[in-house]
C-alpha cells in the first residue's frame, strides 16, 4: 500500500496509524479540522519517512463538502490504495437526552459524515477493483447502554452500514474493515477516570495499520474486547435492562 487517505488523521489513534504508513514511505493525504494540528502532523510524518504528505481541512458537519475533499485527495495522490475514516466525537449523553438537536448533531458527526465519505469511497473502489476501506466504529455500538447510547447507536449504525458495504464490495476484491476499539486513553476521553481496560492510542493505531494491510473484516482492539462484548451482547434483555451500565 502506497497511497493512503486518512480522514480525522489528527485524532490520537489515527495519528499512530499514519506514522506506521509514514515509516514504510507511503504517500499520504491527511484531513482534519485544525490547520495547526495538521501541519504539525504532516511535518512529523515527513520526518518519519513519508514520501509525500498532503493536507486537507474539513468540518464533519459540512457534509456537502465531503465529496470535494475526497476529489482533492484523489487529485493530489493520483489514486488511492486505502482509506481510513477515523473522525468522531464523544457526545454528552445527558445533553442529548435533554435536546434532540444535540443527538442529531452527534449522529451527524459520528454516522452521517462517515457515510458521506463512504459513499464516494465505495463507488471509487468498486470501479477500481482493489483496495481497502477502514472505519473506526466502537465497542459501544455492540449494545445500547443507558450511559452512552447516543454515541453507541451512531457507531452501531455505522457498523451495520459497513457490514452491508463489505458484502457489496467483497466480490470486487475490495476489503472493508470495521475497527471496534474499547476504551482508549486519548484527549477524547481525558475527562474520564481511567481503569485497567484503557489501551494506549499507539497500541490501537498499530493494530489498525495491521488490519488495513491484511484487509481484515471486524477487528476488536485490543483483542480482549471481542470476549468482553461477546458476554455483554449475550446477557438476556430482562437482566440487562436492570443493570447500571
Amino acid at each position, binding site marked *: 500500500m502506497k497511497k493512503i487517505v486518512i480522514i480525522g488523521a489528527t485524532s*490520537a489513534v489515527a495519528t499512530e496509524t499514519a506514522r506506521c504508513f509514514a*515509516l514504510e514511505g507511503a504517500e499520504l493525504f491527511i484531513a482534519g479540522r485544525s490547520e*495547526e494540528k495538521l501541519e*504539525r*502532523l504532516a*511535518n*512529523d510524518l515527513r*520526518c*518519519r*519517512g513519508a514520501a509525500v504528505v498532503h493536507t486537507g481541512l474539513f468540518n464533519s458537519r459540512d457534509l456537502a463538502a465531503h465529496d470535494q475533499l475526497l476529489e482533492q485527495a484523489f487529485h493530489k495522490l493520483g489514486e488511492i490504495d486505502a482509506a481510513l475514516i477515523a473522525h468522531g466525537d464523544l457526545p454528552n449523553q445527558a445533553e442529548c437526552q435533554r435536546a434532540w438537536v444535540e443527538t442529531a448533531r452527534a449522529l451527524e458527526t459520528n454516522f452521517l459524515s462517515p457515510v458521506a465519505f463512504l459513499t464516494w469511497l465505495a463507488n471509487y473502489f468498486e470501479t477500481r477493483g482493489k483496495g481497502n476501506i477502514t472505519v473506526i466504529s466502537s465497542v459501544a455500538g455492540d449494545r445500547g447502554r443507558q450511559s452512552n447510547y447516543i454515541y453507541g447507536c451512531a457507531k452501531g449504525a455505522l457498523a451495520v452500514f459497513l457490514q452491508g458495504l463489505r458484502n457489496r464490495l467483497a466480490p470486487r476484491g475490495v476489503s472493508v474493515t470495521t475497527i471496534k476499539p474499547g476504551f482508549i*486513553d486519548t*484527549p477524547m476521553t*481525558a475527562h474520564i477516570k*481511567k*481503569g*485497567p481496560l*484503557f489501551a*494506549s492510542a499507539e497500541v490501537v493505531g498499530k493494530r489498525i495499520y495491521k488490519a488495513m494491510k491484511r484487509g481484515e473484516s471486524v477487528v476488536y482492539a485490543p483483542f480482549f474486547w471481542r470476549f468482553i462484548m461477546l458476554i455483554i451482547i449475550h446477557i438476556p434483555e430482562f437482566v440487562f435492562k436492570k443493570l447500571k451500565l
Partner: protein
Amino acid sequence: MRRYESWGRYPKIRDQKVLSVYSLKGPLPLPEDDRSVLPYGLGRSYGDSCVNDNNAIIETSALSNFIAFDPSTGILRAESGVSLATILKVFVPKGWFLPVTPGTKFVTLGGAIANDIHGKNHHRAGTFGRHVTQFGLLRSTGEHLTCSPTQNADLFRATIGGLGLTGLISWVEIKLIHIRSAYLDTRTIKFRNLDEFVEISRENDPIYDYSVSWVDCTTEGDQLGRGLFMAGNFSERTKSRQPPSLAIPFPCQAPSWLLNSYFMRSFNTLYYNKQFSRSVDALTHYEPFFYPLDAIINWNRMYGSRGFFQYQFVVPFDQKGETIKEIFRRITRSKRASFLAVLKTFGDLESPGIMSFPRKGITLALDFPNDGAPTLALMNELDTIVLGAGGSLYPAKDARMSHKGFLASHPRLAEFEPHIDPRFSSSFWRRVRN
C-alpha cells in the same frame, strides 16, 4: 492504564494530579489551586525527581511529533515527549544515531535534557546537553522562550540538568551522528580486580568510542571489583541497519525474597565466567550493546512491591583508586548489592549544564533491593566516603540523599536557583531543599 510513578517504585505516590499538555502553542496547564507542577516523561528516573506527590505533574506524551530533520547536518528538531526509542526506530535505518544515549532508550528528549544524561561515550562525547543546539521552554507566566548557548543562555545552562524545574521543555533540537551500520565492533575483556580495571580502561578508552564495565560486588580480597569491560565502535564492516529485536515483558511482580545474597552471588559468578578467554571480540547489534535491560519490559518489577534503590556517584580519580576500593569493600561486606553494578570512567568534557552530574572521575551505579533501614544506613555510609573524597551523587537515581549530600554534590546551586520557575517543584526538590 499508565501509572505515574518513578522507576524504583519508591517512595510510593499518595496523591498526584495528572495534567496533560497537547499543544506547543497553548498556555501551560496548571492546577486551579496553588499546587506546583512538574513535567513527566516516561518515568525512568529511579527516585523521586520525576514525581510531585501531593501536587501535580504535566505528562508530555502528546508532544510526540518530529518537527524537522536536515540530512545534510544531522540536526533533528522534535517535540519534547518524543522518546529516544522512537528516534532510533526512525533514524537508524537512515544511517543516524543518538549523539549520547543512556542505558535505556525509553526516555524522552525532555527527560534527557532535564537529567543531562550520559552514556558509554562520556569519555569521548560528554553529556547529552553538549549536543543540544536549542530548545523551547514554556514558563508558568505563559512565556515561550527559545534557549540556546546564545539566546536566553542562562536558562539554557540552568535547564540542562535542571531536573525539570525551570519550566516545561516543549521542543528540542539535537545533532545526530552518522553511522554506517547498526552494529558495533565490540570487545569484552575480563578484569580480575579494580587495579586491572583501571589499567584496561586507560588502555582502551582512547581506542573505543563506547565503554562500560559490569562489576561483581560480591567478591573480596584480590578479586575485589572483578568484572567485564565492554567496549565498542560503530562498525564499518557491515552495512546492515536491520534490527533483531524482541522485547519480553517481566511477567509479574516477583516475591521480594527472591533477590537474596545467595542468588546474587551465584548470578554474579555465572555472569563473570560467561566467557572463558580473557578477551572476546564480536559484531554486536546496538540494541543488546546499549540497552541490554530494555529487552525485559518492566524489569523493575523484579524487585517486588517494596521497590528498590539505585545508587550512583562519581568520585575524582586518585592514582591508586583507593576511594572506589573502600566503597567496594563496604558494599561487599554488607552483602546487599545486586547484579546491576556498572562502572565507568568519565572524561573531562564539560557540560553546559550548571546542575549536570557527570564530571571527570570514576562513576559507579548499582541497585539495592529495598530492605528498609539497613539499606538506607549502608547508603548513608557510602555517602560519607563519596562526599569525603570530593565526589557527587546523581539526583536522577536518588530517593534518599540528605540535604547536606545534595549541597555537596551541587556546588553551583546558588547560580541555578534563581532560574527555577516559581510554579515548578518535585518531591525530590522539597526533600533536599527542606
